[in-house]
């Protein structure tokens, strides 16, 4: 029982982290129609910036400054690269951000080397939050979850309760009309892009210390975020939230499970056959955990191609 409780908690927190990155992606897509392939690269940049700043400024200032720097990078990318290729269409913008993700990953490899860097949770945050049946639960996980929740509430309030939020939301639906009313829409786009990048950077700065910070982290998380977005339905915040939690929780439940498909087949008397076939049928759930989100995605594609909460195309 405690095992399952831990798995649920871990999964929820991983899901919240996924949401922090996919929220920015969804926001940018909903607003500009651009799928920013480099979004997960911003997550990685956040982690590396925080790692670099930490010895100079201490942990707290580092996780505040790193997202600001990432926001700067995001704004530069939007202003000088994306806006330049906007006239060639959305596919072109996707390709350019794809190229950028390659360039960013290679630059990181050049500057920090190909292997993981030693970016760790600071000692003052490295303690157990509570103990259940002899197992300590790290406080830092709760801290990551807390930051994600606070960010979510802040964005929600910003979008629904302020004037800026109204302009942003209306610029998503009717950009020309908003421009006609005298708002600087390109500026709004740049701001949204920057905020989205900063969110990913913050997620990276906080999570990089707990998980590993290496040049592959962008790809690993990026693929998960894309799965989240396909499952949840692109452009839907609620869908992104639901899909992030779904994938986070199934993932962490699967990691701790010894279940095999062969065991299921034993119930209907086909266990022997399954053992003979081997391969996928006798693999433990725990080793399949990394592939589970992809199967969820395929299932959603067959049953509900527009995603859990997406609109019909």
């Amino acid at each position, binding site marked *: 029982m405690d095992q399952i409780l831990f798995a649920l908690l871990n999964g929820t927190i991983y899901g919240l982290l996924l949401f922090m990155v996919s929220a920015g992606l969804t926001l940018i897509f909903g607003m500009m129609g651009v799928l920013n392939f480099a979004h997960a690269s911003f997550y990685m940049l956040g982690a590396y910036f925080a790692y670099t700043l930490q010895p100079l400024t201490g942990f707290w200032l580092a996780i505040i400054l790193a997202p600001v720097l990432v926001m700067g990078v995001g704004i530069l990318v939007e202003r000088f690269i994306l806006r330049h290729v906007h006239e060639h269409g959305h*596919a072109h913008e996707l390709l350019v951000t794809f190229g950028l993700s390659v360039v960013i990953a*290679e630059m990181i490899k050049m500057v920090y080397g190909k292997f993981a860097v030693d970016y760790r949770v600071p000692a003052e945050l490295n303690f157990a939050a509570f103990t259940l049946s002899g197992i300590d639960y790290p406080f830092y996980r709760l801290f990551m979850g807390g930051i994600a929740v606070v960010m979510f509430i802040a964005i929600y309030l910003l979008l629904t309760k302020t004037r800026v939020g109204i302009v942003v939301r209306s610029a998503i639906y009717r950009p020309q009309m908003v421009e006609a009313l005298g708002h600087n829409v390109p500026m709004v786009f740049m701001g949204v892009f920057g905020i989205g990048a900063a969110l990913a950077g913050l997620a990276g700065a906080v999570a990089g210390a707990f998980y590993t910070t290496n040049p592959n982290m962008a790809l690993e998380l990026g693929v998960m975020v*894309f799965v989240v977005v396909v499952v949840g339905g692109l452009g839907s915040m609620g869908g992104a939230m639901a899909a992030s939690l779904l994938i986070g929780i199934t993932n962490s439940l699967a990691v701790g499970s010894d279940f095999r498909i062969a065991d299921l087949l034993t119930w209907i008397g086909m266990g022997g056959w399954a053992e003979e076939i081997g391969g996928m049928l006798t693999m433990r759930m725990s080793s399949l955990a990394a592939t589970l989100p992809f199967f969820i995605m395929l299932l959603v594609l067959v049953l509900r191609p527009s995603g859990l909460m997406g609109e019909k195309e």
Partner: protein
Amino acid sequence: MKYAPLLLLLTVAVLVALPWLVSGSMLNAAVQMLIAALFAMAFGLLCGQAGLLSFGHAAYFGVGAFAAVHAMNAFGGEGLLPTPLLPLVGGATGLVSGLLAGYFSTKRTGVYFAMITLALAELLHALAPHLKTVFGGEAGVSSFRMPAWGIGFGSLNDVYFLTLVWTLLCIGLLYLFSKTPLGRLALGLRENAHRLRFLGYNTHALGTLIFAVSAMFAGVAGALQSMNIEAANYVVLESHISTAVVLNSFIGGVRVFLGPAIGGAVMTFFGHVTSDLTRVWLLYQGIIFVLVMMFLPRGIVGELVERLRSPGSEGFAGTLGTTLMRLASLAVAAFGGVFLVEFLQRFLSAEYRAGVQEGIWPNITLFSHDWAPLSVLPWGFGFGLFGLGIALVVMVNRRVAARKEAQA
């Protein structure tokens, strides 16, 4: 474009004569170039003609590679088919896996399609290490080429000709495919899928079919690759293979028929040539890709074809003049940029940092010159050349714009 068939014949003639013209190492590079060209063409069919952008084409390349190795090992090393026909196995496996993956991925179009293809490739990549019997775990699966039809297939020359024949054959088939009704419908899918649906076509089935054909040719390329190195490892399923084919094809230009092939071959050639000179070739590849996407959206070959077709108002000589001036200024900027990147790479490398002791920073040798890293000289040199080149490009552009204004 009346010289096109002549140019094509000349290229084929040079390719056939290549083993007598270049060294063994270069011939090895030529095999890689041919494989990259075929793979890029398969990708170009899906992306350029049908407008479906796949970020996970390594999966079908890898599936073909593993199928070929297993076919070579079949019947106790006898081989499922004679060696020259083994790429057929890769193609068939690619076709089947393409039908399956295509069914799922073409359920959506646009950016969703791109994300699904990436996720499917990552799924295979995550699954492969666990399926030891198929993918051979860490070590991979190895094999060796059996002699067949009186050919030994032991020497590099034999392998080269095998690859050349298959590559030319497949590119020819792809050309013919683009002329079939299905090939023409692919263009329709790219231009206006809605309208195709109104006309009564099943766009999902159409997309799946084109995806499968593209995966089939990718499988052939993969089979040629594993036959060349006589082994397959799950590294071929990694994302950088998918990335490379996207970058190469778009640098060449996906909308012109041979654009992807030329892009693939040229970039592989540069990758081979520079592999001794630089450690950050992938960075250059990425930067070239971003620059091409920003300034030559049709790709390099696409832009060339366009220029040759319509030389513009200044006439051929005028265009040539400005193009040469632009290229010269770009070369200056590129030299400055490359200098900076290489200097930075050496400055930041682990070996150099290990050599730094007590505040003494040893000199860095670059372009047969010693540079002191803490002096202003190398940085000034690099940034200066880079800035000068950019300024020259801007100047040329302004002059061209002014001339156009004066004419109008």
